[in-house]
C-alpha cells in the first residue's frame, strides 16, 4: 500500500514539473499579495512590523487554498481517480500521496519564500525564523484540510469557491498559533508553546483528514 503512496506522489510531482507555471502560481500570489501591503499602508516600520506576521500567514493561507481546490479535479475529469479508487484498498494512502505532492510542490515554496516577506516587513531575524518554522508546521495542515474540501466538492460546478468557504474557517486555529508564535518572539517570550500546539494540530489533522477525504471521495464517485 505504501507503494501506491509513492507512485501517486511521484506522478503528481512529475505533473507539477511539466506544468511549472501552474505549480508556481501560489508562490507568485503569496509574494505579490504580501508585497502589496507595505505599498498600501505606507513605509512606517513599526506598523509594518506589527502586521507582518499576520499578513504573511493570511497570504500563505490563501495561496495554499488557490491550488488545493483542484487537487482531485483533473484526475476526476480524465478517469485516473476511478482507477486509483479501484486499485486502493485503503484510499487514505492515495489521499496522503496526493497531499504530500501538493505540500512539496506548493507548501514548501511558501516556507522558503517567507523570509523574503519577513525582510519586506522589517522583521527581526529571530521573528523571521519563527515565521518560517510556523509555516513549516502550518502548511501541511492547510494541504490536508484543503484535500477534504476538494474531495467534498468534487464534480460541483462552483467547487473552488465552496472549498474556500468550507476550509477557511477550519484553518483558524493554525492561523492563530502561527501568528501567535511570531508575536511571542516579538514580545520577547518563547514561541515554544505556540509551535507545540501547531505540531499537535498537524498530528491531529494528519490522522483525521485522510479518513474524511477518502470517505468524501467514495461518495463523490458513486
Amino acid at each position, binding site marked *: 500500500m505504501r507503494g501506491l503512496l509513492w*507512485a501517486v506522489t511521484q506522478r503528481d510531482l512529475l505533473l507539477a514539473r511539466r*506544468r511549472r507555471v501552474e505549480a508556481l502560481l501560489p508562490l507568485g500570489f503569496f509574494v505579490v499579495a504580501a508585497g502589496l501591503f507595505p505599498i498600501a499602508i505606507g513605509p512606517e516600520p513599526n506598523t509594518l512590523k506589527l502586521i507582518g506576521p499576520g499578513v504573511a500567514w493570511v497570504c500563505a493561507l490563501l495561496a495554499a487554498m488557490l491550488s488545493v481546490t483542484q487537487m482531485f479535479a483533473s484526475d476526476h475529469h480524465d478517469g485516473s481517480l*476511478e*482507477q486509483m479508487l*479501484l486499485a486502493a484498498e485503503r484510499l487514505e494512502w492515495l489521499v496522503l500521496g496526493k497531499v504530500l505532492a501538493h505540500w512539496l510542490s506548493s507548501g514548501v515554496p511558501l516556507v522558503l519564500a517567507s523570509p523574503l516577506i519577513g525582510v519586506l516587513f522589517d522583521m527581526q531575524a529571530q521573528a523571521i525564523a519563527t515565521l518560517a518554522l510556523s509555516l513549516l508546521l502550518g502548511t501541511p495542515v492547510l494541504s490536508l484540510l484543503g484535500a477534504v474540501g476538494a474531495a467534498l466538492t468534487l464534480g460541483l460546478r462552483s467547487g473552488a469557491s465552496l472549498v474556500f468557504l468550507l476550509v477557511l474557517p477550519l484553518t483558524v486555529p493554525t492561523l492563530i498559533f502561527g501568528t501567535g508564535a511570531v508575536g511571542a518572539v516579538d514580545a520577547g517570550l518563547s514561541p515554544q508553546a505556540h509551535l507545540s500546539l501547531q505540531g499537535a494540530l498537524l498530528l491531529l489533522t494528519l490522522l483525521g483528514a485522510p479518513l474524511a477525504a477518502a470517505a468524501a471521495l467514495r461518495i463523490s464517485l*458513486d
Partner: protein
Amino acid sequence: MLNARGLACRRGRRTLFRGLDMQLRPGSVTWLRGTNGSGKTSLMRILAGLSAATEGVLQWCDGAGGQLIYIGHSNALKDDLTLVEALAFLARLQGLDDADARAHRALGLLGLASRREQPVRTLSQGQRRRGALARLALDDELPRPWILDEPYDALDRDSMATLSRLIEAHAARGGMVLLTSHQSVDLAGAAEFDLEPWRCA
C-alpha cells in the same frame, strides 16, 4: 466467478433495471447488450465496485483473479505525461513490478511503439484509446476479470483485431471478460447478455 442476484440500479428518479441476475464464469467472454440509456455502464460500474447497487447482492467468488481491470469511457491517461509514463503509472497501480519495461512492451504490441515518448495530449482519439487498452497487454500473471466499456470505440480495423485476440487469449487463460460494444464483435465463444428483460420503463 461473479455471482449477482437481484441487482437494481436507480439513477436520479429513474430505475434503470431491477431484479437482474447474472453469473460470469472464469474463461467466459460476455457481450453486454442493451439500447442507449439502458444501464450498461451503470451495471458495469456496479460490478466493478465503483458504485453501489440500489438493491441486490454481488459476490466475487474465489478471489484468485485478483483486483479487476475496468476500462471505462475515459482513458485514464494524463495529458501531460508521455504515453509510456501514463501507462507505467497504471501498471504500478495494478501492483505490477517492473512497470516501465512492461509498459514499453505493451505499447509495442498495440502498435504504439513510435508514440511512446509523446505526450498524451498530442495523440489522436484512437491512439489514446489504444494506449488505454495497452493495459490489457501488460503481461499480467493473474487472470484478472476484465470489465471493458466500449473498448472498440475509435479503433481502426487492425487494432480491433488485436483487441479481439487479446480478449480471446485472456479467456483461454481462464480470465473473465465482460464488454459492451455498439459494433458487432467478432469474438470466438462470446455469449450475449441482453439487459432488455430487466429494464424498467
